[in-house]
């Protein structure tokens, strides 16, 4: 099967292609340089005047796992506002803040996204995360396993186990959970909350293990790096949402001795304490630090106004913020001496000073960080806003007039505290393609996605250029997934099941002897039963596991 995409303007930053007219050939799901001599072209699409990019990649979106399903169970009234009937082709479900799994897959594809990564896979809940992602059609998926508040790791830290032993445990966890990387959430804080600690700053000790978040972050950042896992340690910082947390965030960047670090939903970690209300934007300081420290990347976690639900592993913070729940109901859980979760519905209001400033802070960060390869477009779905608001967010970044018009409508006090109106920058299509494609694929470690070079998977999105970027990005003309035409004119026309991406770093399997004993002594399941098999992911033909290459152990400690 050979497809030719003819005459489109191609934005492929991985190869430096910025709007050049290039023909693309796809054979059996992969991009090829050219047909064989005399090879018949089975399908040709005339894309003259159209904008062509790789399929978009959401590198941080809560689409699977316990807390997402708790959020669904918590909010029947939200689902009732967006019922999704079945069609000849598509199954029924519901949308808005936490869509059902099938609707999630359809709607991502309809926006030109072809991959999404669940950032908070609790090892003890990993199978559920994969089951839910397994029922999410069309897009590729994967997850980052959460460590840093789990007893076994903190026990190793307290016992001052050497880095090699820790690396083995981290690698074992990646294998057992079928993950693409490692995330740490409120390093050590979820655990500390179980001992009734209510805050945990970077250099504060967990009262049982006497370990600090700084030590956790440094050790895990180093482990991920030394294992050759492409995705840097994915960090949800300590003190989320706390005015003045900019200091914690800057110290976090500085505290990992140059190891690569990805700071997620950094908007929630960029707050100062200036002004009458002791709440201010620290976006400029954060952006400056990102610009300076090349080992740091971040996604924004932009908030947009309206009803949503916050679902997080950070139950320490979620419990603290539960009084803001809207509607007034929330769930917090302590989970398996492994992690936790907190689910708090939330309504961001444009006339609320704090919410309005959060909105402005997110946009300031987007616009003040120079390098689009190190800043990523997210709303931390659904925490800042549902992923379906991405086209609106792209318009805010690409259209200064529109942005300033929106700015003029928010709380005047928040306007007065923001520098947003003075920022001239407008993102280009090329920069959007970096942020949502090439950069995201590189950051996650998807070697064959996010670009349109020879050998890449044919995940391709085609748009009609439109000065209204929201309209343009909401409804692509065509989306190809692995060479199949899955979306035409913004509607799904074929349902496929994407791959689940994983990495398999090398490690010393003798760690299983110790782990098996540990599970028998303290846990309520056997170590072997924690492991998610390929069959659990691919059963019933819902996709398959794709192993992405690790670089092998880097600078292994002697």
């Amino acid at each position: 099967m050979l497809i030719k995409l003819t005459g489109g303007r191609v934005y492929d930053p991985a190869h430096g292609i910025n709007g050049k007219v290039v023909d693309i050939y796809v054979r059996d799901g992969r991009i090829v340089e050219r047909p064989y001599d005399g090879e018949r072209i089975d399908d040709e699409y005339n894309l003259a005047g159209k904008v062509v990019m790789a399929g978009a990649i959401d590198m941080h979106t809560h689409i699977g796992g316990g807390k997402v399903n708790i959020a669904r169970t918590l909010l029947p009234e939200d689902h009732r506002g967006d019922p999704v009937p079945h069609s000849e082709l598509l199954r029924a479900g519901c949308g808005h803040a936490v869509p059902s799994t099938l609707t999630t897959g359809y709607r991502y594809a309809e926006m030109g996204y072809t991959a999404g990564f669940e950032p908070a896979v609790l090892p003890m809940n990993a199978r559920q995360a994969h089951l839910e992602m397994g029922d999410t059609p069309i897009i590729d998926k994967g997850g980052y396993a959460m460590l840093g508040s789990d007893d076994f790791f903190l026990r190793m830290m307290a016992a001052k186990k050497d880095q090699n032993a820790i690396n083995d445990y981290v690698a074992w966890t990646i294998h057992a959970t079928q993950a693409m990387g490692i995330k740490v959430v409120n390093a050590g804080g979820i655990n500390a909350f179980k001992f009734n600690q209510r805050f945990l700053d970077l250099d504060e000790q967990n009262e049982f293990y006497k370990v600090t978040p700084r030590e956790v972050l440094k050790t895990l950042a180093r482990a991920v790096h030394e294992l050759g896992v492409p995705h840097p340690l994915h960090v949800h910082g300590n003190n989320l949402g706390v005015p003045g947390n900019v200091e914690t965030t800057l110290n976090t960047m500085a505290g990992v001795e140059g190891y690569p670090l990805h700071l997620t939903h950094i908007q929630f970690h960029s707050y100062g304490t200036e002004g009458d209300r002791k709440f201010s934007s620290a976006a400029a300081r954060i952006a400056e630090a990102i610009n300076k420290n090349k080992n740091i990347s971040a996604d924004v976690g932009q908030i947009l106004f309206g009803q949503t639900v916050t679902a997080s592993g950070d139950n320490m913070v979620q419990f603290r913020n539960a009084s803001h729940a809207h509607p007034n109901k929330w769930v917090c859980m302590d989970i398996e001496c492994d992690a936790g979760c907190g689910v708090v519905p939330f309504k961001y209001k444009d006339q609320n000073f704090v919410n309005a400033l959060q909105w402005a802070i997110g946009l300031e960060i987007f616009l003040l960080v120079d390098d689009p390869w190190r800043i990523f477009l997210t709303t931390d779905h659904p925490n800042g806003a549902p992923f379906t608001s991405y086209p609106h967010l792209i318009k805010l970044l690409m259209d200064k007039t529109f942005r300033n018009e929106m700015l003029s409508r928010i709380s005047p006090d928040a306007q007065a505290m923001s520098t947003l109106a003075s920022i001239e920058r407008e993102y280009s299509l090329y920069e959007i393609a970096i942020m949502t494609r090439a950069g995201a694929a590189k950051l996650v470690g998807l070697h064959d996605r996010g670009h349109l070079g020879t050998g890449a998977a044919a995940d391709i999105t085609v748009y009609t250029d439109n000065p209204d970027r929201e309209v343009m990005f909401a409804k692509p003309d065509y989306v190809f997934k692995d060479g199949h035409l899955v979306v035409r004119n913004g509607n799904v026309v074929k349902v496929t099941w994407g791959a689940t991406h994983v990495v398999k770093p090398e490690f010393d399997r003798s760690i299983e002897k110790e782990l098996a004993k540990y599970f028998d002594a303290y846990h309520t399941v056997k170590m072997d039963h924690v492991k998610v098999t390929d069959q659990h992911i691919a059963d019933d033909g819902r996709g398959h596991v794709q192993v992405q290459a690790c670089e092998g152990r880097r600078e292994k400690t002697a």
Partner: protein
Amino acid sequence: METFSQAGTIDSVTCPFCGLLCDDLTVEREASGQLKVAKNGCQKSITFFGRAPQTPSARVGGKAVELKEAVAKAAEILGAAKHPLIAGLGTEVQGMRAVMSLADKAGAALDHMNSNGFIRNIYVVQNSGWQICTLTEVRNRVDLLVIVGTDIVSLFPRFFEREVWNSASMFDQNTANREIVYLGGRNIDTTAGIAPGGRKPDVLPCDPEHIPAVTAALRALTAGKKLHATEVGGIVVADLEKLAQRLLNAKYSVITWAAGTLNFPHAELTIQNVTEMIKSLNKSTRASGLPLGGNEGEMNANQVSAWISGYPVRTSYARSYPEHDPYHFSTDQLLASGETDALFWVSSFNPDRLPPKTGLPTVVFGHADTKLEHEPEVFIPIGTPGVDHNGIMFRSDNVVSLPLDQLRASSLPSLSQVLTAIEQAL
């Protein structure tokens, strides 16, 4: 590749017969496929694994037929129904996925056989949420366990062995010092709550219908309110005051209930009193709820339904999109109101859970050992997950899922195979 048709001993077997999902059983298999629990059994698992292997044929109108014919008849009934009900739902995750797909296609309603209990918890979550924990947290942290209205062990036999009187704990707690309080209920067997050293649990009994008043009083007392009454539901208020103080002083208390046993009108309000008390205790110390359940695949049904439809069960696809109504879409209500016209009943773990009596066309997907009181239009015997075929099962805490492994050779189809065939025949 395991040879399922030979005799052998299998370690680390997971038992799906109650919500605890103990995964440390040793099961012996005879060449005939007869299984026997050799280690770490309980009364429930011994019965479950010990059932003689059988391969009854499918039946249509009481007559043995080929599976294909039974599938065709089931598809005919489903296709003719305006609002079929798929209930029971005693199955594992793959089976439940197949149920969801079929329900979407057929415009069916969904309910689980244990929903009358489970829905009380759902009401609480939908109305106010809660603060809860999972079994390994209990095993390693609990210092005060308050049990509301149940003995636990008649539903979950190994609960105390595995989660309370465990010998090792992560944080060097001497588990024998854990305090147990049974609150409410009459004639409850409290022997499992006796500590290894012989220390007896505290028991504050009351008639079940007084549990709402007792829990409301306890909540008020933990919030620092004074009560004018001197006793509530037969329990001296001074004793409740002491319990309130212990909850406030505990480092990590766990308050547990089994929604199915709180069998009085509007028990959800009692559960809510407990869960709101827990939220409030957490202002100063740590406390967690532990809703116990998960028998007959109750969590599988609700989890899979929630991610595929957005809602837990008692959801209907009649309008071509899912609608959730915990009252109208209950099995009892749908049968009583005449708003369903065909019953599809699933029970793959337990042959004793029979479909409700109804004059409607009925299709039963049952455990091979099922003995029906009334012959349905169609009976299709299905394999037991974790015995005859693989599966995945969610535990009582609704977080941990465990793989169920096939233990013996079996010719019985899985529920998902049968339902997929029916869907194709529609």
